[in-house]
């Protein structure tokens, strides 16, 4: 858990400029450097070290890469890895599609636009654990509100969180509901910043509403898309609190993701092993996000 936020890897590195003498004396940077070293550098290096040990908090033994070998041998870990990717792709994809559609709707001339915009943002403000507990109650297979409503129409609802095939998807849908507001707001900002001239020009050229959306809104809202994709991918890859509060990775291991597997190893007292898991998570996030970020940003610079 000590690794620095993976978000850091998403920041594009600016082109190197010729070295310039700083106007500030060196000691001026010292406080920030000390804070950085103590709070980020040391824990990161320490976690890299402890991931190579069998660590009980009281003492440690150096065991080389055994933790990583063990980590990949665990059957529910591979499952967790696959689930993580499914979860990240599903939530990220749905947030992009639904967020964009809602943003287009909420930037059009409709009644009570500001009110509707705040309504869509509301779930973002609620505590994740609170949302998780609420939906757990709503999704109860026999007494939950969702299945009771379905029963009114004569449909026998599934065990949303207890059916091993559905549990992960149910949690992902709740995640989308909760995070959609943020994606929508980012898209609204992106769409609003598109100059009206483009739309007028397109209209004069005889483009219909769909063509205006496809050829003007979509390409020009690209920076917003990049932000939404990267934020929701990172969020999805390291998602933990919602899954933990809804299913605890269950039933059994069927909705376990990397973060919940790591948490369980940590709870069980396998400190070295869980630290190794965090290193794996860090590398995984970096492997996925860096190319995505480079790809999306390059397209942006050379349209």
């Amino acid at each position, binding site marked *: 858990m000590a690794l620095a936020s993976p978000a850091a890897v998403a920041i594009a590195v600016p082109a190197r400029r010729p070295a310039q003498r700083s106007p500030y004396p060196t000691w001026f940077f010292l406080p920030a450097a000390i804070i950085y070293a103590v709070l980020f550098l040391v824990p990161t290096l320490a976690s890299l070290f402890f991931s190579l040990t069998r660590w009980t908090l009281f003492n440690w033994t150096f065991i080389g890469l055994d933790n990583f070998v063990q980590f990949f041998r665990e059957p529910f870990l591979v499952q967790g890895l696959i689930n993580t990717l499914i979860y990240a792709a599903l939530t990220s994809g749905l947030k992009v599609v639904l967020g964009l559609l809602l943003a287009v709707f909420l930037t059009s001339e409709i009644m009570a636009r500001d009110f509707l915009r705040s309504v869509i943002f509301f779930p973002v403000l609620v505590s994740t654990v609170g949302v998780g507990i609420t939906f757990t109650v709503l999704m109860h297979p026999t*007494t939950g509100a969702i299945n009771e409503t379905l029963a009114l129409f004569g449909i026998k609802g599934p065990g949303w969180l*207890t*059916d091993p095939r559905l549990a992960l998807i149910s949690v992902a849908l709740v995640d989308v509901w909760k995070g959609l507001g943020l994606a929508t707001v980012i898209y609204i900002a992106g769409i609003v910043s598109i100059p009206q001239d483009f739309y007028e020009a397109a209209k004069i050229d005889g483009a219909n509403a769909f063509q205006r959306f496809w050829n003007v809104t979509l390409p020009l809202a690209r920076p917003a898309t990049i932000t939404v994709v990267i934020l929701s991918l990172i969020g999805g890859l390291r998602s933990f609190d919602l899954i933990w509060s809804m299913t605890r990775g269950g*039933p*059994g291991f069927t909705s376990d993701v990397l973060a919940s597997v790591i948490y*369980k190893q940590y709870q*069980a007292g396998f400190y070295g092993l869980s630290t190794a898991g965090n290193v794996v998570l860090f590398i995984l996030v970096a492997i996925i996000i860096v190319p995505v970020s480079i790809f999306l940003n390059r397209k942006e610079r050379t349209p």
Partner: protein
Amino acid sequence: MPIHTTRRLLLGAVAGLALSLTAMGPVFAQDPVTLSFLIDNGAQTIPVAQKLAAAFEAQNPGIKIDVESRPGGTEGDNLIKTRLATGEMTDIFLYNSGSLFQAINPQQNLVDLTDEPYEANVLDSFKKVVSSDGRVYGVPIQTAMGGGVLYNKKIYADLGLSVPKTWAEFMANNAKIKAAGKTAVIQTFKDTWTSQLFVLGDFYNVQAAEPDFAEKYTANQAKFATSPAAVKGFQHQEDVLKGGYLNADYGAATYEDGLRMLSAGEGAHYPMLTFAIAALQQNYPDNLKDIGFFALPGDDAAKNGLTAWMPAGLFIPKTSEHQEEAKKFLAFVASTAGCDIQTEAVGVTGPYLVKGCALPADAPPSVTDLLPYFEKADGNAPALEFVSPIKGPALEQITVEVGSGIRPPADGAALYDEDVRKQAQQLGLPGW
């Protein structure tokens, strides 16, 4: 004259000083010492600890006890380990005996209580599970428990059933209960820990069939998957699922739901530890007389016995600055007066592990059902977690999977063996 006066004055002053010193002696001693006392936040632990602390304070005006609570389960394990590792542990703390106790490095972290006079009051069966290398480190709090089946006596009476002594009899009872339109076996997988009873509570039968299982298992020579006796616990889970004996919402039901269904007579059997009797006493006092208990049956009616759980212990960390006062409190808990106060606080849920502690005559039937197992010489065997330091942390997820049909029993047992290996390596046991 002036000399005399001075001398007399001096004498007087010295005498006065001596007097005031003796007078002040007890004052110094009475300077109140505050002991911090960390307990888990279980619904029964809190009243027990508070009553014990209050009674102890009344007897020892110089000592105050400050009760702090912590979460239970693995989160609590973590907290205990972290506080011990950082030297921030309270003066006294409550923690599991058995394998979890072994995992906190007793020799390095805890005060040795072997030679304390009050350890003579503690039963040997408990001393064994709080010992490391022959040294004793704790005293018992609360009562011993059994892992087996809490059952509804009313349903049994209505259907004319008798307590099963073999698994086949148990399944036959289940069939009759199902035919009568009731839930035969209650399972509550939302609280995953409740799913482990079929496996953990079957250990009496495992050790009856393979007496050296625990020893070999600790030495990496016996496995759940390859031992015909040990794999049966997982098999039994599949049996009750495939028989259609479970409550419809077994995947989403909680421990509280299970207790409610059992008390209300919606379900007949709830595999559980007997500490649930305290919760039943608190929440469903009117139905308590309808609830009985029996040990999980095995294959042989002649070898029917109980898998027993030892209660938690109280321990003193070496970092405590008030070890003498803390020991005084432990002596109080390990006395008959201590037992009586615990009974007063939450009622009685099983036998105490302190010599001379008696149970009240009005104990509920589930508790009196439990006693014969403890009175017979080979009527009970400690659970595996008390005779081996290794317990895999993922068992509760595995038993949920086997119990819901996601994973076949043999696979579940093999997966658990893999899980156990990690724990053994973490503890640095030989042979792994």
